[in-house]
């Protein structure tokens, strides 16, 4: 997990700063993003929410698939046996909450997951608490109840199947998925 965070911390600002120099693809309005210099690797992977520059809408539906937009990021990671959303994921949740507010017809399914250790039933409940925590955060930020559904997959659908802490950390996760993605 730590390596993943460090990689994100390096890669994200690079991606974002690189973005401003890239011309937007004609059929897909690019996200105008504040120019940011790469920061020290100890900084958590805080990504600035998209800021509109001119007539480009950072909350356009196409941004969900734009790898340069924060909206293309969907994972919220949790600590072992925890279901508190960590501060480092708050900008991500804020961006998706804003997207849901600006696109009231869009619907989201949040899938909560747990690592393989411990009881399957407890992990099913834990995944439920995780997806519910993401949902609550989105609702507090203005998303509507009928837009967001939370479910748990427990430990049944692991993304990574090695018995290592790195792998387990990837599986302790909430995924924010939009219609057509699940």
């Amino acid at each position, binding site marked *: 997990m730590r390596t993943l965070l460090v990689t994100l911390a390096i890669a994200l600002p690079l991606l974002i700063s690189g973005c401003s120099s890239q011309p937007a693809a004609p059929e897909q309005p690019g996200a105008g993003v504040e120019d940011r210099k790469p920061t020290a690797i100890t900084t958590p992977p805080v990504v600035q929410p998209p800021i509109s520059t001119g007539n480009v809408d950072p909350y356009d539906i196409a941004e969900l698939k734009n790898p340069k937009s924060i909206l293309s990021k969907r994972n919220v990671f949790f600590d072992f046996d925890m279901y508190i959303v960590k501060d480092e994921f708050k900008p991500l949740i804020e961006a998706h909450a804003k997207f849901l507010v600006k696109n009231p017809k869009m619907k989201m*399914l949040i899938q909560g997951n747990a690592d393989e250790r*411990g*009881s*399957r039933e407890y992990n*099913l*409940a834990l995944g*439920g*608490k995780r997806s519910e925590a993401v949902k609550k955060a989105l609702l507090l930020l203005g998303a509507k109840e009928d837009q967001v559904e939370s479910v748990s*997959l427990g430990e049944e659908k692991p993304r990574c199947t090695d018995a290592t802490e790195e792998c387990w950390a990837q599986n302790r996760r909430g995924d924010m998925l939009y219609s057509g993605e*699940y």
Partner: protein
Amino acid sequence: MKVRHSFVALLACAALPAGAQLSIEITGAGANRIPVSIADFAGERIVSQALTSVVRGDLERSGWFRLVEPGTLATMEPTAGNIADLKTRGADAYVAGGVLQTGEGRYESRFRLFDVPKQAALGGHTYAHGSNQLRTTAHRISDFVYEKLTGEPGVFSTRIAYVVKSTGRFELQVADADGMNAQAALASREPIISPTWSPDGSKLAYVSFEAKKPVVYVHDLASGRRHVAANFKGSNSAPAWSPDGKRLAVVLTKDGNSQLYTLNADGSGVNRLASSSGIDTEPQYSPDGQWIYFTSDRGGSPQIYRIGAAGGNAERVTFEGSYNVTPRLSPDGRNMAYVSRNNGRFQLTLMDIATKQSQVLTDTAKDESPSFAPNGRTLLYASEINGRGVLGTVSIDGRIKQKLSVQAADVREPSWGPQLK
């Protein structure tokens, strides 16, 4: 939600190929095993041999017995000389029997059990059976011998249920307690968890994800028919039968968190049992039906609690450590098996309810899903060895151990069926 075609096969009685059968390996035996000599049963050779080998296998694998060679002796009426010979071989008990063909595909099997030091017959039985009931008959003989010599009922005639996961496929299987006769009751591309036997042994309640979310089903094994017992908004899981088989305790998230409810086995009469702001899950009735034991993180970490079966105030049961889950009561209500985390290892643990003394029973690190044998002497559980899901059994003193595995697949979520009269 996009509707995908989901593959679910309901199977009433589908025998599995030999490679899919559970294989059993003894990994620990009791300290004082009873030396018993089992003569080759007399009669139609191929039939009697099968019977004898099943009885020998049962008794030896149980960890309570050591087999002693009977030599050429094979009589149900041993002489004083025969007994003296058995004594010198070190046998404490002697079993002899025979099989008679009574008609087309019909047999009569008889046996007698002797106490060698006392030179006394301890009893015997005659069973009429068909050629497809050979193993069943042998298990009943083993049950008789086990009970006479150890004082507790045998569990060789019982069945177990478990889930086998191979690539992209989950199967709910039912097998004899020795792993033989495995049959699939349900096959699905989505996970199946938490199977549990109805007290009369005719049904399994379980959780299937085939509808892309957890739903509780009750499945009749003889007919292969099933019905939805709980499918509310959100997740439906962790079914547990009341001792009279009429109600199920389940966990629902329809009102928010994972919370405990009870309902009739047909899905009617839903009643909320408890309220907490955190997770409540894994209910299990005490054998007297008075209590429901469950896992909750209401105190900050997952611990075991119990509440009256009709509701009331919950009381905490486990206090040591920061992770105690999956409470399972022994049939006599004296012991509680559960999984505790110790230095990062998840281990099968046994608590004496009266003294609250606990003992870790295993040396594995990923134990889950304990289930008591109907005689309360052995626990069946899931674990992992070399990255492979296996089942284990362990006696409640931690000495007698077996490993049950399936070739090229993970086996998990075991549940030991009841003793049928």
